[in-house]
């Protein structure tokens, strides 16, 4: 009965306890985090199984029924998202054990607490069925994210500050849009809102409200002209924060947009020009992201730019406006999160051994860190879109959907970005494979790092092979029948 | 009913906002921003949003200004624009 909320509560509870423990028994902090994340993941699995067997689960917080109280609404897709978020956070947390314990000295407790909070925030975003609650959760997730990303030397604080400004504007715009909707409909509950909006007259204000909400979320998800914060934030920060947040932040925002598009906002309420603009921006994001990724020297920055392109994939996919493309966008959320996780985990372990992540520092890695690099290869292949890895299938649906609607430019974008990814990643592979590591290199590959990484990499294959299952069980039922 | 007060407060709010972002040094900007919060608070009171006004008074006038002053104290009050 409490499964829905129990997925998030351990994280919140864990973060409070981590602070208490940090100032009393600091050795307890790290295990506490593991327990919290593991519990959360466990409950997510339980929730997913429950939702698969009994259908959408609703939880009334405070016992007040909607629309007066706040509800959590979990359908199959969001249950999958929750599992994805908590699972990837758990993997990151386990993989970076050494960094978390040693890297933050007295601040470990604060770091762990913030980490748990940001995960809780992201999961809450997925779970909640209330527009305003969504805003608060966005801020919980983002605020802790700013801190995690801003903790670091050199340019990390500046990048994080930049992210904070852009992110706050995005969130505020979202809030403004919610205000517009509220003034027109008088409700904040998503299901209720969907009901009212179906009957409401389609007016300029309604269009304006939808546009502002989507605009705000685009800013938050780093869609092309607003992507400026993303590369800096992920490339400058500590590897832990980057590996934790890169798979989550943008994807969760994409999730929110999808949820609004398919569950709340009726098609008539979307301004006519908006899908075209979105397609344009999405396509531009793909091209621009790929192009800029090509010009980067720092490898983490490069992957961050690839992320910009991936956002373009998803935005394009969801605004193409047919079932296949929407499936592709939804599937790509999972795929992109997993790939990014794998890549950032691998880069994190490499960075720990080699320091700065420029190409020259990656010599001979296949020899010294074979398992890490194997996982990296899998992640990269998935980014490129090689079957049977997960990335291929989402790309397939996107391509297929684009073809159905005749969005040829978008198709070209997808293909070009895949090709650019080939070039980018094979640059790394070549250096890592064929160059000699150098005399002074003493790389260590510890099982505690490799295991989570391997899990993530294997998941890429497993999820790829079961993508039919994922689409059937998690995604297909969510897309409304009106979307053809 | 008290739209005159609201309107005046609104004008003052806008004036303060523009002044705050155009102030020639950050200390002044922070102080004017404090005034901005005061005015906003009056505006909300006039609209009948007592709790919000209370919070804004506490936050904007008190803590926000103090935090900003602290930050300026620890950095620099120089600004080019």
């Amino acid at each position, binding site marked *: 009965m409490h499964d829905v909320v129990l997925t998030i509560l351990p994280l919140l509870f864990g973060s409070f306890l981590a602070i208490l423990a940090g100032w009393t028994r600091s050795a307890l902090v790290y295990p506490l985090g593991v327990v919290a994340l593991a519990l959360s993941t466990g409950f997510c699995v339980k929730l997913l199984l429950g939702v698969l067997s009994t259908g959408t689960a609703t939880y009334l917080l405070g016992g007040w029924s909607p629309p007066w109280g706040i509800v959590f609404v979990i359908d199959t897709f969001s249950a999958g998202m929750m599992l994805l978020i908590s699972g990837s956070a758990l993997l990151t947390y386990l993989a970076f054990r050494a960094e978390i314990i040693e890297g933050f000295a007295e601040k470990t407790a604060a770091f762990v607490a913030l980490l748990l909070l940001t995960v809780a925030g992201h999961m809450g975003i997925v779970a909640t069925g209330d527009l305003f609650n969504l805003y608060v959760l966005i801020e919980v997730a983002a605020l802790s994210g700013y801190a995690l990303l801003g903790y670091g030397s050199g340019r990390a604080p500046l990048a994080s500050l930049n992210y904070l400004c852009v992110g706050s504007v995005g969130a505020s715009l979202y809030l403004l849009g919610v205000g517009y909707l509220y003034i027109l409909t008088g409700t904040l509950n998503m299901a209720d809102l969907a009901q009212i909006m179906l009957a409401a007259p389609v007016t300029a204000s309604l269009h304006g409200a939808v546009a502002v909400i989507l605009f705000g979320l685009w800013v938050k998800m780093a869609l092309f002209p607003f992507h400026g914060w993303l590369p800096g934030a992920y490339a400058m920060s500590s590897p832990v924060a980057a590996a934790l947040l890169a798979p989550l932040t943008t994807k969760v925002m994409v999730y929110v947009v999808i949820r609004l598009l398919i569950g709340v906002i009726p098609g008539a309420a979307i301004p006519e020009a908006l899908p075209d603009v979105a397609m344009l921006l999405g396509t531009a994001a793909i091209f621009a992201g790929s192009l800029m990724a090509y010009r980067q020297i720092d490898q983490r920055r490069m992957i961050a730019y690839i992320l910009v392109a991936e956002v373009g994939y998803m935005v394009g996919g969801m605004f193409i406006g047919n079932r296949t493309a929407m499936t592709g966008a939804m599937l790509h959320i999972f795929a992109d999160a997993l790939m990014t996780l794998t890549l950032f985990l691998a880069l994190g372990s490499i960075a720990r051994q080699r320091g700065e992540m420029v190409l020259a520092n990656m010599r001979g890695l296949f020899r010294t860190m074979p398992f890490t690099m194997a996982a990296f290869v899998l992640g990269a292949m998935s980014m490129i879109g090689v079957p049977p890895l997960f990335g291929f299938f989402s790309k397939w649906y996107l391509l297929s959907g684009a073809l159905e609607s005749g969005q040829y430019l978008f198709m070209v974008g997808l293909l070009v970005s895949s090709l650019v990814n080939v070039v980018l990643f094979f640059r790394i592979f070549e250096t890592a494979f064929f160059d000699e590591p150098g005399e002074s290199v003493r790389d260590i590959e510890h099982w505690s790092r490799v295991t989570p990484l391997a899990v993530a990499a294997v998941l890429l294959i497993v999820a790829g092979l079961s993508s039919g299952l994922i689409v059937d069980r998690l995604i297909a039922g969510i897309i409304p029948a009106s979307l053809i | 009913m008290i739209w005159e*007060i609201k309107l005046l407060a609104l004008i003052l709010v806008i004036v303060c906002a523009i002044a705050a972002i155009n102030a020639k040094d950050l*200390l002044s900007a922070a*102080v004017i921003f404090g005034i901005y919060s005061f005015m906003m608070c*009056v505006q909300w009171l006039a609209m009948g949003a007592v709790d919000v006004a209370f919070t804004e008074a506490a936050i904007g006038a008190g803590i926000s200004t103090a935090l900003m002053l602290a930050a300026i*104290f620890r950095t620099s009050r120089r600004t080019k624009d």
Partner: protein
Amino acid sequence: MESFILYLGIVLMGIMVLPLYRAVVGPTTLDRLMGMNAIGSKTVALIVIIGLVFDRVDMFVDIALAYAMLNFIAVLAASRYLHKRGRRDTAS
């Protein structure tokens, strides 16, 4: 009588423009600070007056009190800044 109170409020609001001018125009930080303080004290009265207009003064007086306190704190903090940093800043 009620309209008297209302007009009182409006006049008070009008008077507030003058310190605001001082606060915005300057020329020294001290002037701005003074403007802030003056506006604060007017606002305290204004809040009570708005309370009277709404006929719910019991709800507004708490806010006025808090307002006075926080205004005091803000002014003190700013002047503390000048205490510690003023000379260096004026010198530079």
